[in-house]
C-alpha cells in the first residue's frame, strides 16, 4: 500500500460521522475525546498531504504546489462521496467544469449548473432565482443530492436565496466534510405543495385576517425573521412580555410550559404557535377565527396532451358543472413549480377581485427567464416578456403587474373567469396564440390578467428544447392571420399597455 492509498483508508474512518454506523454501538465518547480524535486525525492528514506533495514534487518538480493540493482534494472528495452516498444516488456537483469532481466510483454525478445535454453550463447562474430554478429542474430530472465541494462553498455565501431555499426545503448532511451536501429528496415531515406547517399557519392567518399576519417571535430560536423575511415579525427576549393583551396576531414560543403559554395567550390575538427544533409542534387558537381549513379549493390541472406544433396544449376545457373548484391551476407536464410557488398565485387572485388569470414567472431549464407575462401589439404580435434574460431577478420582472396575457405553462384562473371565457380554444395549436386568445376572452368579460413574479416555475430540459424548437410551426403564419383577424377590432380599440419599462 503506498502512502496515498494509506491516507485514503485513514480518511474514510476519519470522515465518517462519529454518530453514524458502527460508532453508534460504541460507548458515546465525550466531546473532549471526540475533539482529541479529530485533532489527531487532522494532524495525520496534514502529514500525509505533506508527504504526498513532497513525493510527487520529487518526481515532477515542475508541478505547481497549489494544483497538487487541489488534486489531493479531488481524490479525497470522490472517495468520501463514494463512501457516504447510496449506490443509486444521483449527485449534482458544483464543479466549475472540472470533470474530475464527477468521477465518484459507481455513482451517477452531473455538473451543477449544466446545459440541457448534461454538459457543464460554462457560466454561473446570474442570480438566486436562476440558481433555484435550475436546481429544481435538475431535481425533476432525478438528481437527489447536491454537493458543493470546498472550493465551491462560496456559492452558499453568494447565492443567499439559494441557501435559504436549500435550508428551508432540504436537509443538509452534517459531519466533518470537505464539502456541503444537501439531500434533495422531499422531506417526509413536510406535506406536498406546502413548504412547512408554519407556512400553512401563516397562509391561514392571511386568509382569515385578510392581510399579512403580525408575528412575535419570543425566543423560539427558529430565526423566523430570517426565514420569513416578508412578514412583520417582532422579536422579544425577556422573561415576560411587555406587550398589551391581544395585540399581535401570532405569538411563537419555544415550548408549552404553562407560564409561557399563559403569557403568549394573553398577547396573541389569533393563535399561539409552539416551535421546537424549527418545526411547529403545537398550535392553539385564541380567537374564534383561528386556523381552519381553507374555504376555497384548488385543483391543479396537469396538461399532458401534446398536439400539433410540439407545444403542450389542451382541448377546450369546460369545468364539470358539479365540481366545486374555485381555482384552476394550469401546469404543463415538464413544468416544475418551485416550492412556495402556489400560494402567491392564489393570493393574487384573492387580493385583486378583478383578476381572472394570474401567471407565474417561468424559467427555462438553464434558469434563464422564459416568460414574465406577455405583451400583445396592436397588430396581434405576441412577445414573451423577458424571454432569454439570464437574470430572472431583474427588477423589471420582479413586481406584480397587469399584462396582456399569461402562459398556460403555469397559471391560475378563477372558475368564474374560465367559465365565462369558455375555456381554451383547441383549434389554435400554437401555445402562445392559444393562451393570448384565452386571455383576451377573459378580459372581454371584465377580468384582468396579472403577472405574479413570486410564483416561479421552471421547464424541464426536454420541455425547454421543445419550446425552442416550436418557435416556428408549419402553419403558424395561418394561425397568426386567423388570430389577428379574430381580435383585430378589440386590439385596435384598446389602449395598448405598451412596454412601460423597456422589457
Amino acid at each position: 500500500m503506498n502512502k496515498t492509498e494509506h491516507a485514503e483508508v485513514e480518511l474514510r474512518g476519519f470522515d465518517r460521522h462519529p454518530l453514524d454506523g458502527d460508532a453508534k454501538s460504541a460507548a458515546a465518547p465525550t466531546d473532549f475525546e471526540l475533539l482529541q480524535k479529530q485533532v489527531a486525525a487532522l494532524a495525520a492528514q496534514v502529514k500525509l498531504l505533506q508527504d504526498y506533495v513532497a513525493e510527487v514534487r520529487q518526481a515532477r518538480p515542475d508541478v505547481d504546489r497549489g494544483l497538487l493540493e487541489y488534486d489531493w482534494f479531488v481524490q479525497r472528495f470522490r472517495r468520501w462521496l463514494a463512501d457516504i452516498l447510496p449506490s443509486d444516488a444521483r449527485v449534482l456537483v458544483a464543479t466549475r467544469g472540472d470533470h474530475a469532481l464527477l468521477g465518484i466510483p459507481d455513482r451517477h454525478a452531473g455538473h451543477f449548473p449544466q446545459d440541457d445535454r448534461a454538459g457543464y453550463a460554462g457560466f454561473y447562474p446570474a442570480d438566486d432565482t436562476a440558481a433555484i430554478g435550475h436546481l429544481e429542474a435538475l431535481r425533476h430530472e432525478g438528481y437527489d443530492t447536491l454537493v458543493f465541494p470546498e472550493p465551491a462553498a462560496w456559492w452558499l455565501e453568494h447565492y443567499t436565496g439559494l441557501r435559504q431555499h436549500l435550508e428551508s426545503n432540504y436537509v443538509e448532511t452534517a459531519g466533518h466534510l470537505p464539502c456541503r451536501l444537501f439531500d434533495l429528496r422531499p422531506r417526509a415531515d413536510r406535506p406536498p405543495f406546502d413548504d412547512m406547517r408554519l407556512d400553512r399557519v401563516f397562509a391561514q392567518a392571511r386568509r382569515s385576517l385578510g392581510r399579512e399576519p403580525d408575528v412575535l417571535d419570543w425566543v423560539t430560536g427558529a430565526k423566523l425573521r430570517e426565514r420569513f423575511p416578508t412578514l412583520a415579525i417582532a422579536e422579544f427576549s425577556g422573561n415576560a412580555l411587555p406587550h398589551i393583551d391581544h395585540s399581535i396576531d401570532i405569538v411563537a414560543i419555544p415550548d408549552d410550559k404553562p407560564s409561557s403559554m399563559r403569557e403568549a395567550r394573553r398577547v396573541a390575538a389569533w393563535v399561539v404557535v409552539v416551535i421546537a427544533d424549527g418545526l411547529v409542534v403545537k398550535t392553539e387558537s385564541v380567537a374564534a377565527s383561528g386556523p381552519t381549513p381553507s374555504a376555497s379549493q384548488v385543483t391543479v390541472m396537469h396538461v399532458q396532451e401534446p398536439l400539433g406544433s410540439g407545444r403542450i396544449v389542451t382541448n377546450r376545457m369546460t369545468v364539470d358543472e358539479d365540481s366545486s373548484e374555485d381555482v384552476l391551476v394550469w401546469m404543463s407536464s415538464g413544468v416544475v413549480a418551485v416550492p412556495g410557488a402556489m400560494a402567491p398565485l392564489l393570493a393574487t387572485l384573492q387580493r385583486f377581485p378583478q383578476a381572472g388569470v394570474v401567471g407565474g414567472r417561468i424559467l427555462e431549464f438553464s434558469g434563464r427567464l422564459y416568460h414574465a407575462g406577455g405583451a400583445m401589439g396592436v397588430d396581434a404580435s405576441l412577445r414573451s416578456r423577458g424571454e432569454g434574460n439570464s437574470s430572472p431577478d431583474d427588477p423589471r420582472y420582479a413586481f406584480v403587474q397587469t399584462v396582456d396575457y399569461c402562459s398556460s405553462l403555469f397559471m391560475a384562473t378563477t372558475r368564474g373567469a374560465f367559465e365565462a371565457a369558455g375555456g381554451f380554444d383547441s383549434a389554435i395549436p400554437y401555445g402562445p396564440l392559444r393562451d393570448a386568445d384565452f386571455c383576451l376572452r377573459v378580459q372581454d368579460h371584465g377580468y384582468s390578467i396579472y403577472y405574479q413574479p413570486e410564483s416561479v416555475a421552471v421547464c424541464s430540459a426536454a420541455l425547454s428544447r421543445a419550446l425552442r424548437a416550436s418557435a416556428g410551426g408549419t402553419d403558424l403564419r395561418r394561425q397568426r392571420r386567423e388570430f389577428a383577424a379574430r381580435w383585430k377590432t378589440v386590439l385596435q380599440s384598446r389602449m395598448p399597455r405598451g412596454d412601460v419599462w423597456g422589457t
Partner: protein
Amino acid sequence: MKALIGSTRMPEYDRECGSKRIFDVVQILRDAGWDIAYVARDDEGRDRYARALRQDGVLTYAGFDKLTNEFLAQARFDIAILAFWHVAEAWLPRLRRVSPATRVIVDSIDLHFLRSARGVFTRPPSDAVATALPVKIGDEFVRELNTYAAADGLLAVSPKETSLIADLIGNPHAVRCVPLCEELPRSPLPFAERRGVLFVGNFWHQPNVEAANHLVSDILPRVNPRLLAEHPLWIVGNASDDKVAQLGLAPHVHVVGWVPSLLPYLSRARVMTVPLRYGAGTKGKLIQSLAVGTPVVSTSVGIEGLDVMDARDVIVADDAAAFAKSIETLLTNEEVWVRLADRGHTHMAANHSHEVVKERLLNAIEHFRTRSHPLMFSAPPWAATYEQVCDATKAAIERNVPPGAAVAVISKGDEALLKLDNRRGEHFPQLRDGRYAGSYPADGKAAVKSLERLKARGVDFLAVPRTALWWLDYYKEFAAYLERTGSPVFRGDDCVIYGLSAEARRVASATTQPQADTRRKRRARTVPRDIEELRPRIVASGDALTGNRTKPCALVLGIYLCGQPNNAADEIATLRASTQCVLDQRWVALGGPAPANLAEVTVASVLEKTPKFEILNRLIGSVQLADYDYLVSIDDDIVLPHGFLDAFIALQQQLGFALAQPARTSDSYLDHPIVEQQRGLIARQTRFVEIGPVFSMHRSIFDLLLPFDVTSSMGWGYENVWSYLLQQSGLKMGIIDAVPVCHGLRKSVANYGWHQADAERTAYWARHPHLTLDQCFRVTDIVGLPEGSHA
C-alpha cells in the same frame, strides 16, 4: 404617466413616519394610474418593504447605482419625487443631465436645518453640548436651500414650513403643502375601557430619544403614583436600544420596542404623550393618535405645523409639571377626555384623511408639471455628446496642465470631470469642504470671489468645459477677471483652460512642449506598479510549437490610447518574448503621437477619434494577409501572462479553433459571464468569441470574416455574425481557459457612446444573418485538464 420616487431606503412604513409618508405617496400615485419606479439609496434594505412595493406593482431598485443612465433616459419619467434634500442633492445633477424633461420635486418631509438648529438652541444651558450653531450645520443649511431652489417643485408637510421655504427661496409658486396621511379607524373603546399612557417614537431619531428620557425622568415622577400604577406607561417604537430599554427599569414603565402594528396600543391607551423638545415637520404619532380618538398631551413643538389648538383639540404643556398635570387630567376627567377625543378625531379626518391628502398631492403634481420654471430646459444640443466633452476636457487638462497641479473645473457637480491622472481636480464653484456648491454664483462678483478663494488654496488653473462656456457670456465680470489676471493656456472646441498665475502659465507652456523625457516618464506611470500582481498564470500549454514543421506566423494588431493609462508597453514586451512564433506586431497610437518607447512597433498615429475596427481594416489593408497563419487583435488595457503568445497559439492550433479568445480572469471586468476563466479546464468550445480585448483568427477564416463591416464600427454584434458564419462553415471556435488574460484597467464602453454603438449594431444585424446572444452563449464541448496532473 411615469414617476420615479427616490429615498434613502425602502419605505419602512411601520417603523418611521418619513417612510410612511413616502409609502403613502407611492400608493396615491399608483392608485391614480401612474407607473412607478422606486429607488432606494441604500442597497441593503429590508426585503419585506421592497416586497410590499413589488406586490403593489412598483418597480424597485435597491441602490442608486442600479439605475443606469440608459434606463433613466429611456424611461422618460414625467416626474421624480425625491424624499429629503440630501437625496435630491445627489440626484439632481444626474437627472438634469440624463433626463432633462423630468420635473424634479423634492419632498422635504421635515426641514433638516430647522430641526438641527433647534436641536442646538433648545438644549438646557447645563448640557455639555455647545449652544452655538456649528459651521457644519451652516453648510448643510446652504446645501439644503440650494437643493430646494434647484428643484422644479417642493412638497412640505405643513403650511408653516411651506411658507418658510417659499420665503427663503423667494418663490411661493414652487412650494405646495401636502400633509401627512393617516386613515386609521376610530377606536370603539370608551373612556372606561381605556388603560395606560403611551409614548411612540422611532429611536433612530434623536429628538425621540430625548423626549422619552424627559418623559420618564422629569414628567412621570410628578404623576400621582397610584394613577400610574393603574395606567402604566408603554414606550413603543423602532430601534429601541439598551439605553431606551433602561427606561423600563423605572416603576410602571414598559419598554415594548418595535411592534408590527401600533393600532392595538393607540386604540386601547387612555392618553398619548408627545413630550418633544425640538424637531421639525409634523408628528405622525400625534396625527395617528387623534385619528384613532385617543387624546394627546403635547409640547408646543409636538403640535407644530398642525392646525390644532390647546384645550380644543389637544392639551399643550411645555414644562414637566404642567405636562404631568395634563396627563392626570386626561386619565381622570372623562368629560375633557371625550371632548378632546371627538374633536381630535374630527379634525384629523378633515385634514389628514387619504382622500384629502390624495387630492392635495395630485393637485401639487399637476401644478409642478404644467408650470414653467426658470430651471427647466429641453435637452441641450450637446446632451448626446456630453461624455465626449468630458473626455476631451480631461485629455486637454492632462496635455496642458503639469502633473501635480490643481485644476478647478466648472463641473456642475460631475465627479467624473475631476478624475484626472496625477492632477488634483476641484469643483468650481464649491463649498468650504470641497464638495460641489450645488448652485451657480449669484453674479459675476460672487463667481470671482469663489475663484479667488480657490486660488488662495493653491489652484492654478481653471478648466471651462464646452458645456459651461456660457459662464463667460453670462458672468461678464468673471470673464473680464479671467482676461485680466489669467490667460488661456489651451483653447479648443471642447474646453478652455486658463492659467490663473504667471507661474502657472510658464509651467504649462513648458509642459505642452514636446519633451520626450517628460513623456516617457508620464507613460511609465501609466503602467501600474503592481502589474506583476495582476499578471495571470498559464495553467496549461499546448505541445511545444517547435515540434512543428515551421513556426506559425502571427500578425498582432493593437491600438493604444495616448493620454490614458494603458498597458501597451508591457503587452508589447510580453509578446516580444515569443520564441515559438514568427511575430509581426503592428500598433497604432490613437489620439496622439507615439511615445518613444513604443515607436518601434507603432506603424501609425491617428489623431482623430476613430473606431477600432476602422483602424484594424486599415492595418489589414497594409499587409499581405496570406503571409500569416494567425491574426491576433489586442487591446491596450490588459495584462498578459508570461509566454502568452506561444501557449495561446499552440493551444488554438491543437484544439483546431478557427477563432479563439483567452478567458478573462475572475478579477477582470466581465461583460459576459461565459468569458470568465473556468478552473480545471483547458478550453471550452463555444459559439461565442468576443471582439475584445483579445481574439485570434486562423487563416482559414480570413476570407470569411475580413475585412470588418464597419456598419458597426466598434464591433458590437460581430460575435453573433461570426458565430453564425463559423457554424455554417463547420468550423470550431472557443475560449481558452488555460491561458487567461486580466482585463482590469478599463471597463468596456469607456471611450465611446453606448447609444451609437447599439444603433450601429442593430443596423449591422439587419445586414447579416446571425445567431441570437442566447444561441451564442453555449458551451458545446470542454477540454479538461488531464486528470491527476492539473498542470
